[in-house]
């Protein structure tokens, strides 16, 4: 094992909370954030006034002081921010750990709130596309938007098509990922796709959005929020539901990472292996664990192809075989790597990676609606372009 300086299990997630997930919350982003954080604090048995740290996502509308005021925090001594967007959640937990271990805070709330369906929709053209000219100012959008490359889905479609070119992956393999997530959602009362099972025929006959990606390759734009409470491992043991130990967190970028927030990743040496492969190296070294040790995983699934690429980047499947791994029921409850047990972004809701952190804690506690029996090592990943992050939770027993 590489010596890394990381302190495995020094901090823990002691509280988890979410709002309901819907297409129209009827509430402000701040109200959603407040509700999810209060639920997480109640889950931990920690008073809101005791919180002294907040970490937010750079794309959240809610700032640290908005939330501090809404919660009645007495004295905020630390705040931080990670991004871009879906890259953040695991890195946000890492920032909370850094604040705690460096003595800047003791009780840190990590949250993500968005009206992703009734408010700003990430499946729409970006706000920049309503300007007279696009790009410049280190966005590099000038090389992409004018050519009609406008959304994350279109970018991941280029990656999926390239994976099919390089390795012969198939629509049915992508479909198996959509179906596995949909199957898990059937047990989860909070999942938006509960009661709407998906068959392969249903997947293949759904409309094409941006080939080769069809409707159910896309996640669910969602209104909602999710939050966790991070504190020291010792203190977490005295909390209402104990702590899920943060065995490792990792952030990493690739050499030749390219600038910008999203589309420039298409300029890298490979578009079928993402920064998740760099994260994996750091993560396994810090955790002292490897892919074979993972009991359950919540892999970032803005699209089915995103999950497929990570199966390879994290070493669960050989290069080019992520699709076959999924299609062979590799990510089902009985498979070698049960994935996205709440239904994931594809079938529970898209809280930009944060609901995956919450579900990973449920698996350690044994309270998931699709529980992996005896799960003790629980992996979460965040979005792979332009850089990425991930974390591993372990049981404190």
């Amino acid at each position, binding site marked *: 094992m590489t010596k890394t300086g990381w302190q495995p299990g020094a901090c823990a997630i002691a509280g988890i909370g979410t709002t309901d997930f819907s297409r129209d919350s009827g509430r402000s982003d701040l109200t959603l954030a407040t509700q999810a954080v209060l639920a997480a604090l109640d889950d931990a048995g920690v008073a809101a006034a005791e919180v002294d740290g907040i970490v937010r996502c750079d794309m959240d509308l809610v700032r640290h002081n908005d939330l501090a005021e809404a919660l009645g925090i007495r004295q905020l001594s630390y705040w931080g921010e990670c991004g871009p967007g879906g890259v953040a959640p695991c890195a946000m937990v890492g920032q909370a750990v850094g604040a705690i271990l460096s003595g800047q805070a003791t009780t840190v709330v990590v949250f993500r709130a968005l009206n992703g369906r009734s408010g700003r929709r990430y499946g729409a053209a970006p706000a920049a596309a309503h300007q007279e000219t696009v790009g410049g100012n280190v966005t590099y959008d000038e090389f992409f938007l004018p050519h009609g490359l406008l959304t994350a889905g279109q970018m991941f479609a280029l990656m999926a098509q390239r994976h099919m070119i390089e390795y012969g992956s198939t629509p049915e393999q992508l479909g198996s990922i959509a179906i596995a997530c949909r199957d898990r959602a059937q047990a989860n009362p909070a999942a938006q796709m509960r009661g709407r099972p998906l068959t392969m025929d249903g997947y293949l006959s759904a409309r094409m959005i941006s080939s080769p990606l069809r409707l159910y390759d896309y996640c669910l734009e969602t209104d909602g929020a999710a939050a966790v409470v991070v504190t020291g491992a010792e203190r977490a043991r005295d909390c209402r539901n104990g702590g899920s130990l943060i065995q490792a967190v990792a952030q990493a970028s690739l050499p030749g990472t390219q*600038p910008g927030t999203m589309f420039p990743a298409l300029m890298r040496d490979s578009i079928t292996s993402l920064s998740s492969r760099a994260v994996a190296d750091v993560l396994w070294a810090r955790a002292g664990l490897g892919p074979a040790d993972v009991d359950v995983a919540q892999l970032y699934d803005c699209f089915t192809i995103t999950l497929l690429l990570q199966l390879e980047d994290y070493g669960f499947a050989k290069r080019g075989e992520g699709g076959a791994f999924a299609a062979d029921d590799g990510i089902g409850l009985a498979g070698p790597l049960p994935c996205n047990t709440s239904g994931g972004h594809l079938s529970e809701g898209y809280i930009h990676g944060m609901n995956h952190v919450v579900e990973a804690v449920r698996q350690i506690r044994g309270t998931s609606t699709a529980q992996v029996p005896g799960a003790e090592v629980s992996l979460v990943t965040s979005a792979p372009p332009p850089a990425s992050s991930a974390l591993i939770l372990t049981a404190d027993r």
Partner: protein
Amino acid sequence: MTAARPVPAPRLAPATSDPDTGGFFAAAARGQVALRYCAGCGAVLHLPRAYCWHCGGWDTGYRAVAPRARVYSWTVVEHQVHPAYPVPYTVALVELADEPAARLVTFLPGRPALHPGQELRAWFERLENGTVLVQWRPANTGDEAG
């Protein structure tokens, strides 16, 4: 091949005055595909930036490359998200013949039959505001359009 479709709404025009990337669009306006290179060590700096980390040089600038490329990947967009880009249309990711490590994206009307490695030639699309985009189309297509 059919002729390019009529364009129903002003397409998005790129910012052309960025100090790092503007040279690409200035070259396009002259009918050239140009990439930014380091004058000291010859490294291609794409996407364009002013500093070469390979050799520590700041002496960098644009140099024309052959207007030839190959298809690397593509997507046919069937779900419309912007009024200036009616569906169906295709976005292709291309690798340049002279610099395979450098890629660009291009707009293609409709659902053209493409295959990986297919040879493409550049053409220069003048937008309503006068800005010129580098676009790519199959090499066997006539050069009359654009």
